[in-house]
């Protein structure tokens, strides 16, 4: 089946012609203060080309859908059975429609300890603080592996938020995505700097575009803390690529949790550079895929670099797959020479709920320092029949028992959400989804 797909593709899939076609379908912004970064990103992209199906880094995910000049239109669905997440929470809302900031639908951007702007509106300011950060971490990320879609995003992004945190704002910032155009090929780019000692929590929900590309660049300075909780809706037929590029300073904390439900083809790349001593980085995801005739494909690709001493990193990835869903995990811990006393941990687990689903993983360690503790584990299997039997013998109906077991399977990933209220809301959402899809 896969072979047939390969053969049907043009000979130079991902080659120079594909890139030309991809770029000509875009209306590349000139940019204001981002202009040099955009030009450099475009040059990088032309240099590396689009990914090819044979690229090792795209071993388990066919990049064709992302290489295509434009996506198939995707009907805009109704609100769905679930009420929006984090509704009753006191937070500062920023609404993006097809990746473009909608000021009228958003809250007032003023908040103590934090400076919030948007890319499109700030471009004209030549002395903007984001000028030396936009595209910088993205550019750094290509040193080990080429990430063409990240460069493409930097060159093509139309909007996004620019956040500088200087204190400890009283409310989290909530990015809400909405759709308007069925065929929207959305591209947005956030830049966040958390100044020394500052803290922020960023929430992101909603659905954007028939195809979307986002980049989030986060610079977490010394002793600063950044927490990202993302629960974007995908729905079937949705195509999405996203890249998170973080730099974590001394004694700083970076935490990200992503909840993903469905999506035809999703690929998330998370690249974290721990540059200061005693830095902490946790990256976690809970993924639920109902293949719906085999068109669910979810790829998490993580690259964590320990470049300083006593760093602690955790990668916790849990995937629940059914109806021909395909879950991918490519995770890497790189410990540079001298990054002694590193504590690196990585776990990737898949629960396959039927015979058609697949899990493909490549959990890697690359270590150049001796006084380190690094480990990874990966397991794949079905629901434990003994445990299921136990629950049923206690009077729990089979479907409910499976939901309970799936929830307990996902618990480790969910535990990476520190805030109890947020965690419970996400857990309730999972419970509801699982019950409907039982």
């Amino acid at each position, binding site marked *: 089946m896969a072979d047939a797909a390969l053969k049907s593709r043009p000979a130079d899939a991902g080659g120079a012609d594909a890139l030309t076609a991809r770029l000509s379908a875009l209306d590349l912004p000139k940019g204001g203060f981002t202009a040099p970064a955009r030009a450099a990103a475009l040059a990088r992209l032309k240099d590396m080309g689009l990914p090819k199906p044979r690229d090792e880094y795209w071993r388990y995910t066919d990049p064709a859908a992302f290489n295509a000049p434009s996506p198939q239109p995707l009907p805009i669905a109704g609100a769905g059975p679930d009420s929006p997440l984090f509704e009753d929470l006191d937070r500062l809302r920023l609404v993006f429609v097809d990746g473009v900031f909608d000021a009228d639908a958003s809250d007032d951007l003023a908040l103590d300890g934090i400076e919030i702007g948007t890319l499109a509106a700030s471009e004209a300011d030549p002395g903007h603080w984001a000028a030396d950060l936009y595209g910088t971490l993205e550019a750094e990320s290509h040193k080990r592996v080429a990430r063409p879609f990240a460069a493409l995003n930097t060159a093509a992004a139309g909007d996004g938020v620019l956040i500088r945190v200087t204190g400890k704002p009283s409310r989290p910032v909530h990015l809400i995505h909405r759709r308007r155009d069925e065929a929207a090929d959305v591209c947005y780019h956030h830049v966040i700097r958390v100044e020394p000692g500052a803290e922020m929590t960023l929430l992101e929900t909603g659905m954007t575009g028939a195809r979307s590309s986002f980049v989030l660049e986060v610079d977490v300075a010394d002793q600063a803390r950044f927490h990202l909780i993302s629960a974007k809706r995908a729905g079937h037929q949705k195509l999405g690529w996203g890249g998170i590029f973080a730099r974590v300073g001394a004694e700083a904390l970076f935490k990200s949790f992503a909840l993903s439900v469905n999506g035809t083809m999703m690929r998330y790349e998370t690249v974290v550079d721990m540059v200061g001593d005693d830095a902490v980085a946790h990256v976690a995801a809970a993924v639920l895929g109902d293949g719906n005739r085999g068109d669910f494909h979810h790829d998490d690709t993580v690259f964590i670099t320990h470049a300083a001493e006593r760093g602690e990193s955790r990668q916790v990835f849990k995937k629940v797959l059914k109806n021909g869903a395909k879950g991918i995990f490519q995770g890497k811990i790189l410990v540079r020479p001298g990054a002694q006393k590193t504590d690196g941990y990585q776990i990737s687990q898949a629960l396959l709920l039927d*015979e058609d689903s697949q899990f493909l993983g490549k959990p890697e360690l690359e270590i150049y320092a001796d006084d380190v503790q690094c480990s*990874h584990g990966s397991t794949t*299997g079905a629901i434990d029949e003994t445990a299921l039997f136990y629950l049923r013998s206690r009077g729990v109906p089979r479907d409910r028992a499976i939901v309970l077991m799936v929830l307990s399977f996902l618990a480790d990933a969910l535990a990476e959400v520190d805030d109890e209220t947020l965690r419970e809301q996400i857990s309730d959402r999972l419970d509801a989804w699982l019950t409907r899809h039982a």
Partner: protein
Amino acid sequence: MNTTPDLEVREGVDRETVETVANMGSYKYGWDTEIEMEYAPKGLSEDIVRLISQKNEEPEWMTEWRLAAYRRWVTMAEPKWAMLNYPEIDFQEQYYYARPKSMEVKPKSLDEVDPKLLATYEKLGIPLKEQMILAGVEGAEDTPADARKVAVDAVFDSVSVGTTFKDELKKAGVIFCSISEAIREYPDLVKKYLGSVVPPTDNFYATLNSAVFSDGSFVYIPPGVTCPMELSTYFRINAENTGQFERTLIIADRGSYVSYLEGCTAPKRDTAQLHAAVVEIVILEDAEVKYSTVQNWFPGDEEGKGGIYNFVTKRADCREARAKVMWTQVETGSAITWKYPSCILRGEESSGEFYSIAIANNMQQADTGTKMIHLGKNTRSRIVSKGISAGKAQNTYRGLVSMHPRATNSRNYTQCDSLLIGDKCGAHTVPYIEVKNTSSRVEHEATTSKVDDEQLFYCRQRGMDEEQAVAVIVNGFVRDVLQALPMEFAMEAQSLVAISLEGSVG
């Protein structure tokens, strides 16, 4: 080798360990044998391939098989995905065939055997009685063999010098001979199985091997036969600038069993030498093959000068139900190791095991691991890999566990641990896990750590110096794998572990 340590052997410390630690020295097999050799002209071409075929007195079909492989090879590119850095290999700067002149005509008695060849075996530590047979003396098989019953096929550069205990094995129906002999004597078996596990088009090095392999071992165990002794092949590279390309083919017919050992050494030389072998194992219903390797090729000197570039394709095909294979390897030598002994678990309930110790010291680089390809129902596999890096070495575990959709109810357990000694070396883990059915379970665990300070302190406090203490701890670290080796090999391996790490502490 004979110095007795002044150390008192304490409880919990293996005497062997202490002795080997005390006897640690540099590469023991680094000498060469000055012997008149006959070479094929340098370089590689269709003519050289024909020449090798002709030297081995091969039939036409074999020559064509080689030529097809050669033509394919010319179109292939060297694989670059391994975490290995080495200068470009000039494949035209190698000799592809070298044999001692004295082997041109097979010696009839001990007097006729080149004494230098004889001395080589003696120096390598192979017993004299066996040595008589090894040196190719006809009739020596009749000498009653005493306790140690291991049949040996000795390969010296490009030729098999001799195979021992052939007659005794023949009584059991076992065929054990050089592959060149098998091509002449058992063409039907060779035709049927050669290239059926590792096709001539498999990969760059396997294809090169298919074109130029000069010798190697052939084993056939008939149905229901448990091979009466362990079989062994000893590979020795002697000539300079000469690649060794041996090919081993093992067929375990239904219900049979064989344990096979492989050892290898080479002289110390300043220039790197190429070794590209292929091992194919076919295992039929209810049969079992145990394949153990102690690889001790010259690793190059401390600055990374010389050493063997070891590019090996080893694969076992559990073709029928309940077939079983067990790979055990101790990789201590070679400047470059590129080796992934694999199991194709095709038959229902077949099982594959892989136990590996890979040690890289000084400038050595190893990229090694296994592939477990589960195709049949209820198949089982187990991977235990222990990698040790010291000096400025890089050691990579690379493995694949693949559960195909039809391989229902299958199991895999993988454990790969890395130990780092010193802050200039690297330890890497690159596992691929592909699960395409629900009822199978795959578990993978990997850890990387350094020699534990508390354990080190404990040993030091018991009077060991740091190197001895490290050797003891390392021996504990690799124990799971050592236990999977046949007794004699385990001893040798244990000493090798200590020797390879010599100079890595402090």
